[in-house]
């Protein structure tokens, strides 16, 4: 049986299984300047023909992970970084990040992504969690790289075409 047939069989099996959707929720212990964060995740993973960071709710995921799973140092990096991020943008562009054009926002983020600065730890934390949230989202694990709950096979010599 080929891979596709196996996949289809897996999906049929998985279709009958209980489903508990992931509901994003925040404890709000961290300053969730969600306008800023939702813009950031959207620029990291933009909407194209397919959903982007904002539509996938990755800003909720980032906050949840920092709040619940981040250690003390990471929480501090997040809190301080978000403040510094906003004030630096304000200083350079004379307006709030959320009110700026997508071009200006993108330029600013590209700069942080590509150059050494104090904001690197904050941005790599947010970027890392955005990527994790994206590649572990229901959308990605269904449409892009389908996750198989029940593979029902092990081919030890899988020839790559």
């Amino acid at each position, binding site marked *: 049986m080929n*891979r596709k047939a*196996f996949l289809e069989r897996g999906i049929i099996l998985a279709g009958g*299984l*209980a*489903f*508990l*959707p*992931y509901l994003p929720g925040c404890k709000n212990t961290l300053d969730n300047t969600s306008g800023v964060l939702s813009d950031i995740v959207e*620029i*990291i*993973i*933009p909407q*194209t023909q*397919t959903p*982007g960071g904002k539509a996938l709710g990755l800003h909720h995921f980032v906050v*949840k*992970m920092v709040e*619940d*799973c*981040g*250690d003390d140092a990471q929480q501090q990096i997040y809190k301080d970084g978000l403040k510094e991020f906003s004030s630096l943008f304000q200083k350079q562009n004379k307006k709030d990040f959320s009110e700026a054009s997508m071009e200006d926002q*993108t330029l600013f*983020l*590209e700069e942080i*992504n590509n150059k050494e600065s104090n904001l690197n730890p904050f941005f790599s934390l947010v*970027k890392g969690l955005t*990527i*994790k*949230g*994206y*590649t*572990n*989202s*229901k959308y*990605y*694990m269904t449409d*892009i*790289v389908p*996750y198989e*709950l*029940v*593979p*029902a*096979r*092990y*081919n*030890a*010599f*899988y*020839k*790559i075409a």
Partner: protein
Amino acid sequence: MFINNNSDNKDNHFDAIVIGSGISGGWAAKELAEKGMKTLVVERGRDVKHIVDYPTTNMTPYEFEHRLDIPYAIKKENPIISRCYAFREDAMHFFVKDKEHPYVQEKPFDWIRGYQVGGKSLMWARQTQRWSDFDFEGPARDGFAVDWPIRYKDIAPWYSYVEKFVGISGNRDNIPQLPDGEFLPAYPLNTVEEYFKSKLGENYKNRTVISARCAHLSEPQPIHLEQGRGKCLNRTLCQRGCPFGGYFSSNSSTLPWAAKTGNLTMITDSIAKSILIDKQTGKAKGVRIINAKTMETREYYAKIIFVNASTINSIALLLNSKSQRHENGIGNENDLVGKFLAFHNYSARISAQFEGSLDYSTDGRNPASGGYIPRFRNVEKQETNFLRGYAAGFSAQRYTHSNQDEIGVGLKESLDNPKLGIWSVGSHMMGETIPKASNWAKLDEKMKDQFGMPQIRISVDYDDNDRKMKADYLDQLSEMFEKAGFVNIKRNESDQAPGLDIHEMGGARMGKDPKTSVLNAFNQVHSCKNVFVTDGACMTSTSSQNPSLSYMAFTARAVDYAVKELKKGNL
């Protein structure tokens, strides 16, 4: 506190009591019940019913709030259990949290526990290799511990007996130090695992890689279907509990089988406080239980007691069972209970990459987790500067990668089109350790737990032999990897404490002489003939093979003996 001493109550009387429902307790229950013995199983934790109580078993990664990560607050509160590889969001409910059941660490010891019906058989790594006479003759040949009172021929038929019921996948590899068993078809080695095997064959006389032998139903037989278990469907989510019964656990196999006989009674949330001793005969007459919810104490009576509480808790129960006839605890006339506690040295790993075989990958998942390198050091004779040897895991796989440098559309495209990387290979060490009197567990004289029972104090450490063996593993595996043309070889030495291997063994060792051992050749306490200890506590030495299969075989053999002795009137 209410103490029910009503020994006339029929509800409290059984033929046999089994303390613990994990991998060995489940076997004791099955064997006793099948032989017509009215059997009570006492489990300290909560009930976990097969399938019904596996809440995460059908969840996809994105259904977990933290995508399988453990929240920081839980990690901070539970540093010990957080070090266990399987303590993740999907199975954390099956592990004991540090705070729930404290113990005293004289030296660092990561005690990994599963207090529930099925014990750790729910989350075990399912590797099942037989021991051989190279193991059972080890202490006598190399002059440590005491001679095992049995040899391979004594246990071999019992390995066969349990293997047929459990379902073990594997190949008949014809390796003297790793005897063949009753196997279901093996999970095959993949392209690079086979390649490494062929390179080992070219370069060494006695080194090889075999398909890891594991307790998975690769091809269920009628006996497995009769248990309600089906074929393993390669989910490799075993630690959550398997809805198909694809791997062996007490919950999916032995306990429901025992229940079907009509001879099984199980009580949960019931902590065995002590074994009761008959003043006249000096034999055990029952068990005193504390109800973990109500704190009430109750007594149950039986002709035979099987102690399967897990290595260190079995030691503690024997020590806590003090009476006129056994002032020092059961079996402890020689002051040996708790001593010669040993473990497996898992503190080294090695990883590398292989740039060949790029036209092949794998598809689906391998529940056996890859290959197994049987022990090759000091097998036929002593040949290194350390005693005994190590086995090793070996596996190869190709991971996918995406370039994550950019942000924006470029990043998204890269994430949406992951590329298959080259082969990654890895190995981990499984070293035999030498049991010593200086490695022990005992009852703390002051500290009590929430049930008023003495806390357990543990003092176990690595020794010079362990350190030399670890260095040798890293040297030998590096050389084996180099000779196979692997690149980017990385040695990974972990400073993990003993215990994290989850293979603690000994403390009530078997032996021929009551002066130097606690149990005889049938796991029977020398000085208390109707008490049997058949979990890890009984182990005289540790071998380098995983121990669970041996616990199961010892248990089935001991029950057979115990019931025959009972019928002869010897107990």
